[in-house]
């Protein structure tokens, strides 16, 4: 649960985003110049390395504080690799590795993709859809050396990148590791594996999605109260009210399930069955909320919401893209279904009730 301290960090983030990453303002910008001053300010406030302890070069914030920052980032549909740098810092720190200062991203970001490490510590493999790779200086990598999982820090310049973008226009790259020598290597802690990393990524995207949905709800309600048709604000029509009430339901579901999963990770000592249920559920349900919520919001806004000029797409397209990162909702639903099935019917309710 958020305490006062989490709110202070989140408020700092909100102030910076409002000043330097206001969605309406940057939607009009033709180039990405705003990103530089934004990142500099975030860096000065020590936000990107919030999940790295001070002794490893970060600011040593709690997991809860970091998730609070990400919820706020979602409300601004943030288009810089803050979440990815947070996650990378967290991954490196979990193995006791120091984090470098500049922006980072994390790999792998999809299930069934693997990076291997040879006996002499070289990395090989090809991973797809790494968010913001071309905008980052480093990649934090989870690799397999055949014996155990290893965590490594890699210079992006040492990898081959394929150009690509997600629905929202943020860069997403296929990254090829061809005998890459990492800058730092350390073994992962016992039990930490790709599923752990994907769960963390899934919850991060869930928290961001819930934030984006909160913003979408505010925008939609404000618009419905102000836009007049048939001689009254459209928000006075029951059909529109019922749609917005459904949108509020999706926002509520996304907030509750992602907040719960973030709390579960913050409280847990390992990525156990309970964290799996919470993390997988967060990705499945927030993806559903993103799909339903985006459709309702666009319906409320009509044609204006479908323009480049209007900022609604910054939220809806980004949130729809996030569904694909760190395992899409179908992947997590299948994995969750399999786990529930293998536990059996009698163990089903006890697991649900344990959360």
């Amino acid at each position, binding site marked *: *649960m*958020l305490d006062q301290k989490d709110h202070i960090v989140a408020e700092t983030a909100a102030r910076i985003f409002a000043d330097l990453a206001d969605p309406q303002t940057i939607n009009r910008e033709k180039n990405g110049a705003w990103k530089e001053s934004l990142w500099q300010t975030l860096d000065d406030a020590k936000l990107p390395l919030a999940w790295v302890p001070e002794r490893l070069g970060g600011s040593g914030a709690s997991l809860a504080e970091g998730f609070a920052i990400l919820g706020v980032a979602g*409300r601004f549909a943030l288009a810089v690799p803050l979440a990815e740098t947070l996650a990378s810092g967290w991954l490196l720190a979990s193995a006791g590795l120091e984090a470098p200062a500049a922006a980072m991203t994390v790999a792998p970001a999809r299930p069934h993709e693997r990076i291997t490490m040879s006996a002499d510590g070289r990395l090989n493999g090809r991973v797809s859809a790494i968010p913001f790779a071309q905008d980052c200086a480093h990649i934090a990598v989870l690799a397999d050396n055949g014996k155990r999982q290893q965590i490594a820090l890699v210079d992006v310049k040492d990898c081959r990148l394929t150009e690509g973008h997600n629905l929202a226009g943020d860069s997403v790259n296929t990254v090829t590791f061809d005998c890459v020598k990492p800058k730092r290597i350390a073994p992962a802690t016992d039990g930490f594996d790709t599923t752990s990393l994907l769960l963390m990524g899934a919850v991060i995207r869930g928290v961001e999605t819930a934030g984006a949905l*909160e*913003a979408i*709800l*505010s*925008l939609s*309600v404000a618009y*419905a*109260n102000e836009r007049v048709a048939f001689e009254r604000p459209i*928000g*006075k029509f*029951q059909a*529109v*009210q*019922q749609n*917005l*009430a*459904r949108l*509020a*339901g999706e*926002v*509520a*579901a996304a*907030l*509750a*399930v992602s*907040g*719960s999963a*973030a*709390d*579960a990770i913050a409280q847990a000592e390992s990525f156990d069955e309970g964290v799996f*249920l*919470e993390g*997988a*559920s967060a990705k*499945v*349900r927030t993806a*559903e909320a993103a799909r339903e919520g985006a459709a309702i919001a666009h319906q409320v806004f009509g044609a204006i919401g479908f323009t480049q000029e209007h900022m609604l797409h910054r939220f809806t397209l980004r949130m729809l893209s996030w569904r694909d990162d760190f395992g899409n*909702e*179908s992947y*997590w*639903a*299948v*994995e*969750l*279904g*399999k786990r*529930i*099935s*293998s536990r*059996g*019917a*009698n163990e*089903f*309710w006890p697991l*649900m*009730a344990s*959360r």
Partner: protein
Amino acid sequence: MTTSLSFDPVRLSPQCEALRTEVRAFLAQEISAGTFEPHHPGYSESYDRDFSRRVGAKGWIGMTWPKQYGGHERSQLERYVVTEEFRVANAPANFHFVADRQSGPILLKYAPEHIKKDILPRICRGELCFAIGMSEPGSGSDLFAAKTKATKVDGGWHINGSKIWTTSAHIANYMLALFRTSPPTKENRRHGLTQFLVNMKTQGITVNPIYQMTGKPGFNEVVFVDTFLPDDHVIGEIDGAWKQATSELAYERSGPERFLDTFYVLPELVRTLGPEPDLRGAEGLGQLVAQLHTLRRMSVSVAGMLQAGKEPVVEGSIVKDLGTVWEQKLPARVRELAALLKPELLNHTALEDQLAHATTIAPKLTIQGGTTEILRGIIARGLGLR
């Protein structure tokens, strides 16, 4: 730029979990004694006075109420645990459930002291069944159109008119009902209704059963002809019942019973799919589990807000909206997921029986206790749209 929706990740305390263990042991004992069968959902709709008395003796009715009225001063979250374990087990809690959830808290807040002293301890002992007298032949969701009249007479009131769709009226000892004591005013159409405590044994009350589409009784028509209710049975402010109605909604609407009414088909699906389901089965099951987990975390969160003394009316309405729509669709989804499995598999007959039950009760879930449309209106109001 944000809304005020809030769902903190409330966790159940070790005390709650200890209680859960105790509740499960009690239910297991009742099951082995033959009181009910957990795989027969029909039990959760049955009235079992003796069972309710034993639940009362455990201290699980009126759990959150003050001790001076027979309550146990436990938390909303402890009550939550009892409610969900009972519901998941299909325990026959119908006799006491409405009194515990709804009628008791209203009496606690608005009834005269001697009524509270008389009635509340009996509810806590599991001795009383309550009905809610709201809908009338001409007014359902439009609560404030109620016409059944209370006319002032010496020492009390005469009631004339009828209530309809009244669940439990054929069993109930008491009813909390809304009657018209004044016409609505031009400024406030909600004005003029008063809440009364009605002893169902009072002369001038006739209860006519109305069978539901499941083939079972449940609904009733309750007819009042010159029924005399004493002055001290007025609950709260005369003509001002509308002020009392809304704050109770969060209690009534956000509990686990709002998404667990067809739960039994889900573990039955797990049993039917077996330990290694195909992709279609696994994905469908995973989606349902994720949705259920979300609803439960929302509902626990609202219970936490109630415990903290807040009135989360919008959050509670959202839980009921999402929860009842989900539990209504659940049998349809489970039917689809089981549709292509071989009929000789495991427990196919058991699943079909449970689906038949769940499918027939499904339509009522989004109607009772505030229709989906009414709830969405309340949510829209909370959003600032009306």
